[in-house]
């Protein structure tokens, strides 16, 4: 039985299949879905409004691709302090903590490297000179951040893309967990969390996409609790002088990390934690597995 329901804003569809209600929508340039361990359509509508609304709210507020939002304002006010609301302040504080913890490898100012690195197979590898010209504009420590105020120097930009999607997953999970009894799985473009077990006591099965065969799940992961996040994209890489460069850029060198896995999936209590660890693992290149082992979390590393 498939029931298509169209809502005016935002778009989502609801279907019921094998005792699970599935809500699909697009957000943050990714396919997203919410699975509910229930066949209650009215409930599904309520949950859809909540989940889609929250995802869209976070995207509109923090995407750097949208004009007029807070990130746009910060990125377009060089040399001026921009006031942050409580939520933005928490996100920025978290970005700084990740920067410190990762010894500068996780850096929300590294997005400007995408001006010269295009992983679309058409653009050439940039020259060292082009990279060197951008490096002075990267480094979170160059930003002035007092509590609740942020000021960027001329030429610098911030991009919360590295935490936004995982943050949205955790926020939606938190909202839904408090309100609804059935187990719910939230999946925004592969970053996943669950609110609880299925009523039957069964675990949730998650398929992990094989980067080489992108429509087929290559392995299955069982989840009882917590969240998983994946970093890496098999279809985005550059071959240069015989070396394969993934799309993960090292903010300190301005170059892609050599020897990264093709993708890393990490399980943790929150999607935010899982996403940071997965990204850092990619940045560890050939040491990814060693790094992941040390963290003591469940992971899947695809090379």
């Amino acid at each position, binding site marked *: 039985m498939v029931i298509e329901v169209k809502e005016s804003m935002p778009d989502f569809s609801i279907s019921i299949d094998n005792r699970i209600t599935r809500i699909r929508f697009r957000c943050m340039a990714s396919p997203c879905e919410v699975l509910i361990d229930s066949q209650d359509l009215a409930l599904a509508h309520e949950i859809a409004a909540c989940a889609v609304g929250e995802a869209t709210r976070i995207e509109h507020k923090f995407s750097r691709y949208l004009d007029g939002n807070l990130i746009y304002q910060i990125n377009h006010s060089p040399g001026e302090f921009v006031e942050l609301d409580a939520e933005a302040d*928490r*996100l920025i*504080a*978290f970005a*700084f*903590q*990740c*920067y*410190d*913890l*990762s*010894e*500068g*490898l996780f850096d929300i100012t590294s997005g400007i490297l995408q001006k010269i690195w295009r992983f679309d197979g058409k653009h050439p590898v940039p020259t060292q000179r082009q990279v060197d010209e951008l490096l002075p504009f990267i480094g979170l*420590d160059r930003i002035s*951040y*007092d509590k609740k105020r942020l000021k960027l120097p001329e030429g610098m930009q911030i991009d919360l893309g590295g935490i936004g999607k995982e*943050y949205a997953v*955790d*926020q939606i999970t*938190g909202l839904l967990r408090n309100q609804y009894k059935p187990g719910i799985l939230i999946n925004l473009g592969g970053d996943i969390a669950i609110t609880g077990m299925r009523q039957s006591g069964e675990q949730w099965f998650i398929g992990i996409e094989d980067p080489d065969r992108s429509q087929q799940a290559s392995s299955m992961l069982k989840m009882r609790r917590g969240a998983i996040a994946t970093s890496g994209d098999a279809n985005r890489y550059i071959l240069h002088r015989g070396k394969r460069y993934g799309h993960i850029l*090292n903010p*300190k060198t301005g170059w892609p990390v050599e020897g990264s896995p093709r993708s890393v999936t990490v399980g*943790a*209590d*929150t999607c*935010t*934690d899982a996403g*940071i*660890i997965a990204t*850092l693992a990619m940045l*560890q290149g050939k*040491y990814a597995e060693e*790094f992941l082992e*040390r*963290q*003591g*979390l469940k992971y899947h590393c695809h090379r």
Partner: protein
Amino acid sequence: MQLKRKLTGALSLASCSLLGLPTAQAESQWDIETAVMYYSEKDRVTAIEPILGMKKELSDDEFLKLKFTLDSLTGASASGAVPSTQVQTFSTPSGNDTYVVAANETPLDPTFFDTRAQFSLGWDKPIKRTLRRNLGFNISKEYDFTSIAGNASWTWDTNLRNTSYTIGANIELDWIEPEGGAPLPLSSQDPDSSPPILRDGDSKQKQVYDLLLGVTQIIDRSSLVQFNLSLSLADGYLNDPYKLVSVVDSTAGPNEGEPVDQIYENRPDTRQRSALYSRYKKQLTNRDIFSISYRFMSDDWGIDSHTVDVSYRWRLNNGYFIQPGIRYYEQSAAHFYRYFLLDGDAIPGTVTADYRLGELTTQTIGVKFGYSGNKNNNWSIRLERYTQSGESHPDVAIGQLVNQNLYPDVDATIIQFNYAFLW
């Protein structure tokens, strides 16, 4: 760059705060640290010192610290006067009474008894993400001494928090009200005359200004170095009102070296000190901790001192540890330090025979044993043996003083018990 740490603990704390989730310790509690120290010099001073320290996180990374200390001292310390082959009679500091010192004994001031109460308050607050400010206040009161002090310091973390710079300043105001009034410097103490002690006012004051510059550098995941430069200026009444200098007979004969007079000491009224402190600390692969520090201090009184401190914290099973340590200290004498003065010579404008300003070395050897496995409940016991020694038979000794011990050793035992818990 390879990340060699386990990040998940700190990361989940950060993400819990991002997501508004409860963290393991949501409600801020008081960190309480209690200690009792027992200090005992052989035949001299005994002190018992209970300490209560309290610390609370007021808000994110903002701390309030309170500390109460009570010192109770009994016993006697060397007055600075030399021993004699004869019984010596001295006036008590009040001038109302006398006491005698047996022949060939080091004169002590036997009325030494005091209780000191001290309270300090510290407020440590992050000003910016990488800048902390610490403000402090200190008050201390004993029978003849009152001190208040205020301090401020700023610590700036940079280089991904691998380097910290500290700048700090302290101002201290002290009031000294010696028993019976301050003795007139360089005047004689004579139990037979009236009054036995000449006075120079009831109350004296001094100010101390300190400036501290520090840098701490994390070398790698398991080691750090620290350097501190401190400059200090004391201005005002710097004498010890109870210390004497003996004037001895210098004529050859049976009385050579016998005290003929006892005068009150006089020190310069300013003292400038600078000190450089460096420390290296390393956590070994088995998580034992090795620490070594060196401090050099130099002042314009001519005292240069060197301190070396080495300790090794040896981790035992189940949260217990044992930490042996040794400390060595040596100092040169103040330029106005004299074992005694010679009768007939002009009395210098500044002079002291206080053993603490003489040339000396100290050695401390100790061991600490404790349990630190649980933040809610940890304790330690420290046992130390302290020896201070100087030149007992200096070349300047004449007559009967050649056979006297002019710088007796001080041997002390220190026992301290600490207990810390959350409240």
